[in-house]
């Protein structure tokens, strides 16, 4: 396993500019961290420290204000995600970089197994094969079989999260971002998730994760990065209403 980081976040900062309120809102300030292949880096810190911001920043859902997001591609090249072309980002999302959030947007008519198999479809995996793999991972995450053929639109929070995880894990990306992936799961399913994450690590995936429980950090993290709220944030959270 390589000692070269798959992702280097260098001096990353993100400040939101809210035009309507005439405010700027610092969310991440001078973040530095590395993610290595086959290892899990956990982000910890108090609420408001900008943990989710960093993940969304790496995924380019948030535009960085400054800093570099250096991603090492499979052939050893380096891309600064912060300045990469949109098409490059879309291509990397399709093949390299996965993100499991607490939320799931799906089409009303798509069956759960197709939602899970979608990343494989997009890479051109034969549909039957992709669906078989999707069913396999749904089984492992304890999603009742009767739900596989229906759309996750009507699922409960825990069920949706399992679908979301199944999709993110099945894609076996090179870099996986996890934002509280087990927040609404029962202990038994959480154990399964831990197992699956361990498998991904074995397969060389580098992970950057936020967990809601310190126990999970203990079980899964190879490295921990602690974030502090950026200067100026306090004002916002003390909530002095104008």
């Amino acid at each position, binding site marked *: 396993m390589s000692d070269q980081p798959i992702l280097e976040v260098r001096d990353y900062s993100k400040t939101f500019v809210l035009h*309507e309120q005439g405010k700027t809102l610092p969310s991440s300030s001078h973040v530095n961290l590395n993610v290595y292949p086959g290892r899990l880096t956990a982000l910890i810190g108090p609420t408001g420290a900008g943990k989710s911001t960093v993940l969304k920043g790496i995924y380019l859902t948030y535009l960085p204000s400054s800093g570099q997001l250096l991603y090492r591609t499979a052939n050893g090249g380096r*891309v600064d995600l912060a300045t990469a072309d949109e098409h*490059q980002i879309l291509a990397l999302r399709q093949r390299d970089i996965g993100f499991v959030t607490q939320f799931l947007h799906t089409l009303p008519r798509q069956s759960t197994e197709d939602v899970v198999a979608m990343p494989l479809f997009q890479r051109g995996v034969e549909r039957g094969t992709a669906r078989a793999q999707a069913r396999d991972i749904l089984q492992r995450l304890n999603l009742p079989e009767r739900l596989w053929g229906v759309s996750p639109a009507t699922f409960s929070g825990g069920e949706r999260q399992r679908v979301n995880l199944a999709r993110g894990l099945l894609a076996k990306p090179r870099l996986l971002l996890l934002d509280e992936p087990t927040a609404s799961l029962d202990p038994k399913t959480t154990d399964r998730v831990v197992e699956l994450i361990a498998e991904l690590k074995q397969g060389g995936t580098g992970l950057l994760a936020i967990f809601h429980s310190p126990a999970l950090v203990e079980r899964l993290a190879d490295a921990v990065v602690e974030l502090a709220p950026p200067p100026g944030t306090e004002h916002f959270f003390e909530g002095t209403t104008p």
Partner: protein
Amino acid sequence: MVNDNISTPTLDKVLEVRGLGKVYGNGCPHCFDLTGPEHDTNICPRCGSVVAAHNLSFDLCRGEILGIMGESGSGKSTAVKALYFDEAPTCGTAVFYDQGNAYDLYALNAAQQRQLRNQRFGMVYQNPVLGLNFNVSAGGNIAERLLMSNLSHYGEIRQRATTLLRRTEVLTQRMDELPKNFSGGMQQRVQIAKALATNPPLLLLDEVTTGLDLSVQAAILDLIMEIQQELGTAMIAVTHDLGVIRLLAGRTLVMKYGRVIESGLTDQILEDPQHAYTQRLVASAL
């Protein structure tokens, strides 16, 4: 040096639009300086010309859906109208890449433009009256596009029309009925079938779900996504509906008063909008 040597799959560019603009009226040297979002108008105060769109540039790749979002009068339909040759742009270029050829769209003669429009582009209008011939059966509408691309075998045309209508979930028993007897959602399906008749690599969608019931909207959007995944069709979806953008588009342009005020990955536009207008738009929709 970063960003070179990247191992992303070769992106097949379908379309390259540069500096596209459309002015209604005679225009004057001040038109572009005195209009736009910062002037809160697209009507030139000097000469009264309407700057429908100015300096529109974007790329579109195979299998990609680009969203163009804006309110009415923002100029969001200008690009698709110009690309489908419904209206000639005032300036700008658009290059269409197809089967190893590059077509400089506005340098082509009328016959070449018509050929691309009939065979390589598909258009679905908000108003089915624009996209369908209401005096001709649903199947006949599809036949028209096939006939335009020089398919002249009746049996084959029937077969293709049946397949397309089945694909877009129109009851094939109704294929010989006039579209005016159909519901709005069904008319859109027939339009989509017609647009897809020649397997075009580029599909233009102009407010395709506007005015339809929510459940019908969802089904149409589903259909469009399925088609994109199955056929790898590149699409431009013009809409004022954030929901449509969220579901369909990978990248989005936000337009106001004829200008692109913001563009980016759709999730970024929706979660971290940069422009005051987009922030307002997103905030009011969520």
